[in-house]
């Protein structure tokens, strides 16, 4: 079987993925699977999705040669895929448009979403407004506090934001709560899942909607540089921006695919969010994948300066790509990500999301080990306006 032929009909990527949910959700997931199968083969659906990406999101997003950054890092040429320039400021909108179109097709008038950094919540609230749907967003109480600009954005867009105070009060708890809402309101409600994780068919359909990123790069890189890059780097929380840029590159075997997890205070400290780097396989949130768990199989709390990477699991396809050796996964600590954040601000005039700063930080490590004629493509998955309060706080500055 080819790596690009996955998942199988039940959503398995080798031993990963699958459908691990309570019986109440089985029918809804099956309905979604059947409807998505029809939609992806319906030229009218595909055409509308592409129209929206072009005219509403502003795609294709450019690829940009970060010359001053490359020079400063002293090695390979660094190119940035500018997902930060999308409408709403991140790659998340690619997926929410796809899912909202599916929701509309299925006659669901209410959409729900979970959010960590708030980017997926904003992207969901945006499309709900765009297509005239009711929208409820679940967000960990801790994230509500550290991402207040995005909370206000969602409210401006007409969404109801529900702070979740159970467990660690972050993304995983918001996801639990969204699942509970869905179980309760399954007939009227479409669950817009924000990353390439969760029960089948979500990891597949989110990947498919995000693959526009990598497909554009396949065309743009030869136009700009005459060839494909030597390495593609993307940050990995749940892993949707990474799988979106990786997947079209899987058959291009000379292109290294590198996923960057949140190393928090350092993997050795235990305070991180790097399940692929330091976790073990298990079952959470409807799928099997690498997880952050203790010896009793309880999920452990994650730590990252970046809310969007603060998640104990990872999309199942990444677990598969890791085991298959097709992609490499590394961890970048909070301080390294923050340094890269400032680098990009100062050298290129781009304020990146803290999530994306992890990918830039790994480019900083990799670039000097490569020649000046080699090429690194970094997926700049989002812009950093939402993070300025966090950055100010860790820098000891009061705004």
């Amino acid at each position, binding site marked *: 079987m080819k790596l690009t032929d996955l998942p199988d009909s*039940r959503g398995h990527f080798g031993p990963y993925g*699958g*459908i*691990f*949910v*309570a*019986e*109440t*959700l*089985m*029918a*809804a997931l099956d309905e979604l699977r059947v409807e998505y199968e029809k939609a992806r083969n319906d030229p009218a659906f595909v055409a509308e999705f592409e129209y929206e990406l072009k005219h509403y999101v502003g795609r294709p997003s450019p690829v940009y040669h970060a010359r001053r950054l490359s020079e400063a890092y002293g090695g390979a040429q660094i190119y940035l895929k500018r997902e930060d320039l999308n409408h709403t400021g991140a790659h998340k909108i690619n997926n929410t448009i796809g899912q909202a179109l599916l929701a509309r097709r299925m006659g669901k008038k209410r959409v729900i979403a979970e959010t960590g950094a708030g980017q997926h919540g904003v992207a969901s609230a945006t499309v709900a407004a765009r297509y005239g749907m009711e929208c409820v967003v679940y967000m960990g109480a801790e994230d509500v506090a550290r991402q207040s600009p995005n909370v206000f954005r969602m409210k401006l867009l007409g969404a109801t934001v529900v702070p979740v105070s*159970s*467990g660690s009060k972050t993304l*995983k*708890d918001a996801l*639990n709560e969204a*699942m*509970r809402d869905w*179980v*309760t*309101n*399954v*007939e009227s409600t479409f669950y817009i899942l924000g990353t390439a994780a969760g029960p089948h068919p979500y990891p597949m359909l989110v990947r498919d909607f995000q693959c526009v990123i990598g497909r554009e790069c396949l065309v743009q890189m030869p136009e700009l540089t005459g060839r494909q890059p030597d390495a593609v780097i993307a940050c990995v929380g749940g892993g949707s921006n990474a799988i979106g840029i990786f997947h079209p590159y899987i058959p291009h075997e000379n292109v290294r695919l590198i996923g960057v997890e949140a190393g928090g205070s350092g993997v050795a400290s235990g305070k991180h969010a790097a399940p692929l780097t330091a976790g*073990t396989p*298990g*079952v*959470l*949130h*409807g799928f*099997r994948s690498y*997880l952050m*768990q203790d*010896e*009793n*199989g*309880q*999920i*452990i709390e994650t730590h990252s300066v970046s809310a969007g990477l603060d998640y104990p699991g990872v999309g199942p396809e990444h677990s598969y790509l890791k085991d298959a050796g097709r992609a490499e996964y590394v961890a970048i600590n909070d301080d390294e990500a923050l340094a890269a954040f400032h680098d990009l601000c100062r050298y290129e005039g781009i304020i990146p999301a803290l999530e994306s700063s992890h990918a830039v930080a790994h480019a900083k490590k990799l670039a000097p080990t490569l020649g000046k004629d080699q090429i690194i493509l970094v997926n700049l998955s989002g812009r950093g306006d939402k993070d300025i309060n966090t950055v100010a706080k860790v820098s000891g500055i009061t705004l």
Partner: protein
Amino acid sequence: MSRIGQTFIALKAHNRKALIPFITAGDPGKGLTVPLMHALVEAGSDIIELGVPFSDPMADGPVIQRASERALANKVGLKDVLAMTAEFRKTNTTTPVVLMGYANPVERMGYETFALAAKAAGVDGVLTVDIPPEESAGVSDVFKSHGLDPIFLLSPTTPESRVEQVAAAAGGFIYYVSLKGVTGSANLDTEEVARKLAMVRKHCSLPVGVGFGIRDAATAEAVARIADAVVVGSRIVNEIETAPEGECTNRVKHLVAELRRGVDAASK
């Protein structure tokens, strides 16, 4: 035949319905679970569902989630739950014990290792909420080969076409969750449940238990009229949560006795 099967046959012979209470192991205290289990039996329970604490109980409502959080704060994990069952078995060899929980703690221990240990501890059935029959290939067989009944859920959203498939993987009894939603939700439409059970019984010869939304003698009686077993979870856990210190066991005993009267009233 398993202890669960024997229990249902004995009940049927006496024209009685089963009462199945749920408590979370380790809630409110590590040392209170075994005494609570005995109290449940004394108050008239036929089968005990013992919840295995999990950090992310997605299919449960706030009441059982808080019970899980209290149990985890008491450092109770799957191994402790097995030890508690073994302790209970020292003085009770007849009441079946079903472990109810989520896949990951079992997955972490290893399905084979778990099944061996569970059987040795005196566990009779296992309900892993987030392992549907589609993902249970191997798991169900491992449980069955060690003499553990794999318990599965059916819900109002389960299409008729799936019932047969679920029944084929199941052992012991089928657990019909009578409401959409998480545990602890309100309202129960017994007429709708009765219609659904008639459909389920066409495809399934196992006894059918009904849970979700049962809170007193009246609702227990209404469900006992249509089901083979009445499952009560959140209401009991709520009693444990709100009982003053030292009162927990008595309060639970009192509540379960009331539920028992309701269940028995249906057989009169």
